[in-house]
């Protein structure tokens, strides 16, 4: 038994290491691509402080923060999706499908329509505003899918989520019609998931949320495992099911809001990241959570890099690139979950 366990751990470690190496490779590629071309050698020279001023500006002030943001947002959304899938026992649960990202969006648009003076939304304030909106959406969706005797109903959750997402999307569009042209464009870009807040300020605004919430959720990995057996078995094992579900859901909503407030409505990362990770590393959250984070980071970093390069000099928003991959993947999951 111990031999098997040890072999399993080696395997899990190699999987996490492989993800990290892949991220590193895409990271290097991403540093090298963009509107102004820098050769790999120039990138390395600049990274070690031997580049020109212009090269330093491009790398440190434009590319690096954007890369870091993509990775943080990807990881945060994937972990958020992983939690939601665990507590609802539905592989289709993710912050954008359940309308939770849209709750954040409505809040941001509302803010802009009441304080439209300039786009300089207070950076640190934005995640809090977004959290408020997505909490309302989450309370609505999860509240409507909760049945007293059975706990969360997995199928009803996704159906309710899709309906709420559609409603909130429409609301956002209506609200943004009242905005100035400039703000309207901002909202439109936000909706499709441009990584717009790509400065170090946003990295600093995002990082503590991701770190603290991930640490909390990781500490709860065992509880998350037990919750994924459903209400009856989990209660029988001694978990305070509703209480733990609410705590973990709050963490998932917090992660999603923080991410969405700098990246806009990026869908599917919270769906594909954890699903991919689960297929490779299994359902144990102690390994699944970090694997989801890495898969999400890799996915969004790759999508953003593709979006920046494929149609140069114009850019495709990372959210659109992810959706092009994500939509078929979602259909595939849907077809699979039918049997």
């Amino acid at each position: 038994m111990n031999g098997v366990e040890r072999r399993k751990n080696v395997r899990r470690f190699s999987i996490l290491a492989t993800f990290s190496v892949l991220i590193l490779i895409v990271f290097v590629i991403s540093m090298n691509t963009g509107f102004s071309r820098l050769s790999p050698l120039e990138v390395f020279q600049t990274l070690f402080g031997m580049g020109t001023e212009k090269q330093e500006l491009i790398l440190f002030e434009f590319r690096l923060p954007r890369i870091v943001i993509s990775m943080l947002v990807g990881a945060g959304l994937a972990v958020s999706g992983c939690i939601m899938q665990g507590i609802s026992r539905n592989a289709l649960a993710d912050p954008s499908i359940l309308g939770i990202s849209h709750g954040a969006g409505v809040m941001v648009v509302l803010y802009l329509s009441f304080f439209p003076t300039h786009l300089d939304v207070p950076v640190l304030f934005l995640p809090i505003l977004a959290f408020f909106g997505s909490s309302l959406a989450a309370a609505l969706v999860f509240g409507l899918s909760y049945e007293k005797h059975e706990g969360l109903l997995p199928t009803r959750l996704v159906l309710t989520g899709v309906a709420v997402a559609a409603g909130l999307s429409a609301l956002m569009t209506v609200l943004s019609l009242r905005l100035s042209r400039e703000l309207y464009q901002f909202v439109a870009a936000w909706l499709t998931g441009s990584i717009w807040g790509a400065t170090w300020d946003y990295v600093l605004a995002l990082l503590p949320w991701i770190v603290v919430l991930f640490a909390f959720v990781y500490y709860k990995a065992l509880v998350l495992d037990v919750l994924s057996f459903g209400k009856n078995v989990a209660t029988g094992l001694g978990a305070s099911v509703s209480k733990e579900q609410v705590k973990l859901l709050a963490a998932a909503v917090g992660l999603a809001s923080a991410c969405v407030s700098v990246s806009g409505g990026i869908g599917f990362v919270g769906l594909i990241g954890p699903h991919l990770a689960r297929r490779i590393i299994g359902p144990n959250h102690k390994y699944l959570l970090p694997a989801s984070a890495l898969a999400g980071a890799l996915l969004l970093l790759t999508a953003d890099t593709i979006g920046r390069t494929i149609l140069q000099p114009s850019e495709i928003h990372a959210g659109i690139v992810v959706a092009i991959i994500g939509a078929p993947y979602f259909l595939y999951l849907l077809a699979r979950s039918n049997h």
Partner: protein
Amino acid sequence: MIVTENLDIAYDQMVIVKQLNIEIPSHKITALVGANGSGKSTILKTMARLLKPKSGHVLLDGKAIHQLRTKEVAKQLAILPQNPTAPEGMTVTDLVTYGRFPHQRGFGSLTKQDKEVIEWAIEATGMKEFAHRPVDQLSGGQRQRAWIAMALAQETPILFLDEPTTFLDMAHQLEVLNLLEELHEKERRTIVMVVHDLNHASRYAHHMIAIKKGTVVKAGTPMEVMQPHIIEEVFGIQCDIIRDPRTGLPLCLPYALSRSKKEQVHHIG
């Protein structure tokens, strides 16, 4: 000992169980029997604090179980619900390991004792050769035994099982029942199970509770409960009760539907 006091159980407005007063004797095997939909699972879940009653109490050693800390209850009482499902890809060993959850703290590293109990539970249920297989790829019977192993790993003096022998072939049914009997004999565990086969109940249980529409028709020894007029009232069938030549225990041989049932069937037909 577990006692229920004037228990009313309802799903929203629909009252399923009314004024239920039953006693589960300690260190004995109790069988809950009754027709489909009579409320056996509902009663079992309420006694295990998975459902909250509308009114009344469930007392575990004199204390109201719904007021106790759920993790403390989990050290006293393990329950295997009907049709549990495991996440895709989870292996038997992993599943059984979660049986140790009530005994773990925080991040949950396993002690030597935890590991021994897990190994014992896997062996006792005959799951050793499947220990590293994913639960969702096992046959119904193997899966059932994996779940029983999880409940055993909880190491509780009280064990509730909802239809532990459904999906099993005859040999595996006897294997599970023999295991429960052994747990009772060697470790004096209190066991409550829902079973469909009356003859299994008679053979393995010391105490039987016959349920109809959420109320107790008769509780007592198999000898007291296995009587033609009681079986007719509870299940709507007519039967002969004979003595098992081997054990002397009552055996039920059904021969017809009772008249009211026959009329129902005629109406449908």
